[in-house]
């Protein structure tokens, strides 16, 4: 240990605070690690490696035993390392439990290095994922996760802690933490030493010292109280303040509840991939509209372009706008609905169904996916035609999160069953809703995306990826995005936009809505596009992959989507020709090219057609089947017309669907 000695000596000379000789390397010594793996060989090796790192190791080969140990000894461990594949309990489940109940950092490991599994780990909130065989170097640095997590917790609690001393300490710690995290080497022993000195006072590193904010341990009982409170309030109304009041636990702060609620919502969302359960989305969605309402209203119909240009409109506002618009225009949209009836070429299940479950729309990312599943890519063109009119509906759907809109949505859904096809496939989510949800989600979640737990958002996207057709891709993208159907729209959106005079009318009146929708769509699309679809084993995914750039370009997507939306919105109301949506869509696909030019309608079409094609290629049988079932002759015509349009840039489509006066000609920009 000469190195350390010399280091400390240097430190000693350099700073008076460092007086301890061998203490420098104390941290992260003694870190209490719980290792769970059913493979005895690996377990033994890990134990040995961790011991050599001077960690305190407890090993067990069953997840249930691990949970029992953790529950028994709430603050007995600093970090958990768990295998993914275990016979008695799935590693991810363990991960969730630990995250919810104990809020400890969890590292997953597996011999499986396939992207899906790693992604799953990330989205479930694992703070790291190690591939077996695990090497010593990987284990040496696991302490950074403990520090990071504590740091985040401290920050969360910092809000209510007003002590400047604490702030000072916080900052100091923060800076030290940064040093720790960035270079897990002994070079920063000086600062770490200071930190360590502080830590020395809180030897077991648990909490209670003024240096460390106590970490709230969410015991089973506490969590149950929490859940009871949430259920009592209703997931929609479950705000931290009220939950706190209901729980009536001394020492619990609003911030604790807030962060726990956040996790809980993500957890529920994950769980309810199939159910219609709308976890936090509603809440967040609902709350955001209020905030953004004012600003939103100004948007309606007016400054989209400007907004788009500035790209400033946050996704949240967008979602809020949608919500606002949605609820406001609920009635108006309903009116427009009847018109679209004729266009119900697709035999979607009544939107009502979806709305019925509607609350859950937002939260069911996975649901969304399923809805879209049914939609073959071939359907796109049709969808385009049909969807377009339905767009407003979608928008509404998006807002359906707001209870009142639901009814409006229902109406709309019924009217727009065509559109609902998309939704239908999703099962019971109105695609639109999702988009709005998505937006909200995205906007809300964006910050979370980048935290370990926040990664979960990604998962939701993942769920979505089951869509099979064009719709699918949107669906696939984001389970939460109601807009899954949108992509379809977007793709075909161009045509849909133009063909309907009614739509136009709707546009005029519902411009706002449309805009709302658009963003949703776009958003969804973008999201989809952006997400690295690791999602589902859908063939279509390959199409997505191609078009997707990276995962989690959420923020950008939102903006670009929004911009797109804005552009399209204005366009729509303007001349119903270009389908800005497409542009947006296209842009999105192309990596967020937010040019709100109407021009590239064609490219978009091309884009979508590409997508369609690729998707169709992947699942032609399915698509064609769907296509034939849902679409009659007209559909085929439309489809071919659309495709042709894509090639010719103008698609003169007869409005077999009853579009008044709108022909795809309008699409030509």
């Amino acid at each position, binding site marked *: 240990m000469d190195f350390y000695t010399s280091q400390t000596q240097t430190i000693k000379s350099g700073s008076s605070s460092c007086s301890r000789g061998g203490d420098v390397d104390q941290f992260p010594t003694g870190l209490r690690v719980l290792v769970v793996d*059913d*493979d*005895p*060989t*690996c377990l*033994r*090796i890990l134990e*040995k*490696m961790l011991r*050599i790192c001077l960690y305190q190791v407890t090993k067990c080969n069953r997840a249930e035993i691990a949970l029992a140990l953790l529950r028994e000894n709430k603050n007995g461990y600093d970090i958990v390392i768990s*295998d993914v*594949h275990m*016979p008695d309990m799935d590693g991810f489940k363990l991960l969730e439990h630990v995250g919810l109940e104990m809020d400890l950092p969890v590292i997953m490991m*597996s*011999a*499986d290095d396939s992207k899906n599994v790693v992604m799953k780990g990330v989205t479930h909130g694992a703070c790291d994922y190690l591939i*077996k*065989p*695990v*090497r*010593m170097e990987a284990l040496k640095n696991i302490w950074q996760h403990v520090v990071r997590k504590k740091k985040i917790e401290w920050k969360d609690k910092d809000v209510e802690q007003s002590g400047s001393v604490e702030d000072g300490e916080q900052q100091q710690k923060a800076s030290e933490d940064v040093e720790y995290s960035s270079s897990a080497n002994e070079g920063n022993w000086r600062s770490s030493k200071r930190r360590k000195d502080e830590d020395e006072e809180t030897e077991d590193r648990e909490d209670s010292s003024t240096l460390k904010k106590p970490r709230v341990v969410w015991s089973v009982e506490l969590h149950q109280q929490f859940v009871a409170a949430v259920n009592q309030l209703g997931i929609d109304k479950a705000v931290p303040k009220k939950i706190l009041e209901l729980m009536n636990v001394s020492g619990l702060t609003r911030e604790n509840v807030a962060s726990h609620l956040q996790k809980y919502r993500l957890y529920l969302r994950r769980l309810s991939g199939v159910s219609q359960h709308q976890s936090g989305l509603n809440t967040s969605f609902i709350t955001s509209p209020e905030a953004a309402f004012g600003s939103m209203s100004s948007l309606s119909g007016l400054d989209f372009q400007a907004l788009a240009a500035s790209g400033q409109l946050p996704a949240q506002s967008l979602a809020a706008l949608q919500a606002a618009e949605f609820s406001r225009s609920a009635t108006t949209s309903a009116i427009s609905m009847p018109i679209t009836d004729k266009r119900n070429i697709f035999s979607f299940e009544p939107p009502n169904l979806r709305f019925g479950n509607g609350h859950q729309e937002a939260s069911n990312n996975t649901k969304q996916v399923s809805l879209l599943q049914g939609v073959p890519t071939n359907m796109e063109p049709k969808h385009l035609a049909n969807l377009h009119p339905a767009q407003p509906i979608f928008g509404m759907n998006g807002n359906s999160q707001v209870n009142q809109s639901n009814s409006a949505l229902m109406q709309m859904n019924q009217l727009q069953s065509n559109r609902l096809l998309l939704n239908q496939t999703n099962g019971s989510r109105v695609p639109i809703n999702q988009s709005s949800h998505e937006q909200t989600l995205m906007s809300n979640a964006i910050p979370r995306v980048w935290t370990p737990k926040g990664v979960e958002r990604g998962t939701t996207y993942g769920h979505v990826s089951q869509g099979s057709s064009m719709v699918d891709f949107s669906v696939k993208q984001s389970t939460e995005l109601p807009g899954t159907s949108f992509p379809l729209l977007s793709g075909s959106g161009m045509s849909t936009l133009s063909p309907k005079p009614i739509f136009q009318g709707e546009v005029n009146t519902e411009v706002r809505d449309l805009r709302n929708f658009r963003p949703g769509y776009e958003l969804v699309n973008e999201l989809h596009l952006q997400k690295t679809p690791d999602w589902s084993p859908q063939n279509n995914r390959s199409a997505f992959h191609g078009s997707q750039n990276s995962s989690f370009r959420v923020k950008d997507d939102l903006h670009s989507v929004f911009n797109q939306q804005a552009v399209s919105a204005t366009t729509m109301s303007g001349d119903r020709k270009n389908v800005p949506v497409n542009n947006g869509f296209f842009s999105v696909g192309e990596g967020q090219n937010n040019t709100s030019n109407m021009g590239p309608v064609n490219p978009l079409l091309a884009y979508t057609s590409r997508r369609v094609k690729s998707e169709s290629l992947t699942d032609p049988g399915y698509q064609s089947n769907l296509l034939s079932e849902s679409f009659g002759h007209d559909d085929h015509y439309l489809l071919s017309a659309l495709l042709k349009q894509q090639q010719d840039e103008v698609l003169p489509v007869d409005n077999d669907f009853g579009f008044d006066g709108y022909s795809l000609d309008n699409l030509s920009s």
Partner: protein
Amino acid sequence: MEVVQLQRSFLEYTSSLFQEGFLDAQFSQLQQLQDESNPQFVMEVVTLFFEDTERLLNDLTTALDQSNVDFKKVDAHVHQLKGSSSSIGAQRVTNVCIPFRNTCEEQNIQGCLRCLQLVKQEYFLVKNKLEALFRLEQQIVAAGGVIPMVE
């Protein structure tokens, strides 16, 4: 003298095992983990591996012997085998697990049986090699020597 010779044999033998792919870098890691506090660490871990693998191989044989093969289960076993063999550095065993998992995914019973055969072969090969290695080690120690570290 004898010790030196034993040590040399040991080193040569170990090198050959690495060269022939029976063992990989992970095994070296294990060797480095061994220290005074745990002089038998490698042997201990390898013994665990042997026991675990033999159990897995039996399970695999049984599972593939069923009239209605549960490929998911087979895959799970193979996955575990892959994990443990890679952890101790039994490279050739790990390498067979990869196509083995593919045949499970394909639900290809013949493929699975072939892979099982291969994996058993590789396992017994590496088992023999390691046991020979341990014997050499014991001889060195018995002759009063120190087991050399393989670079």
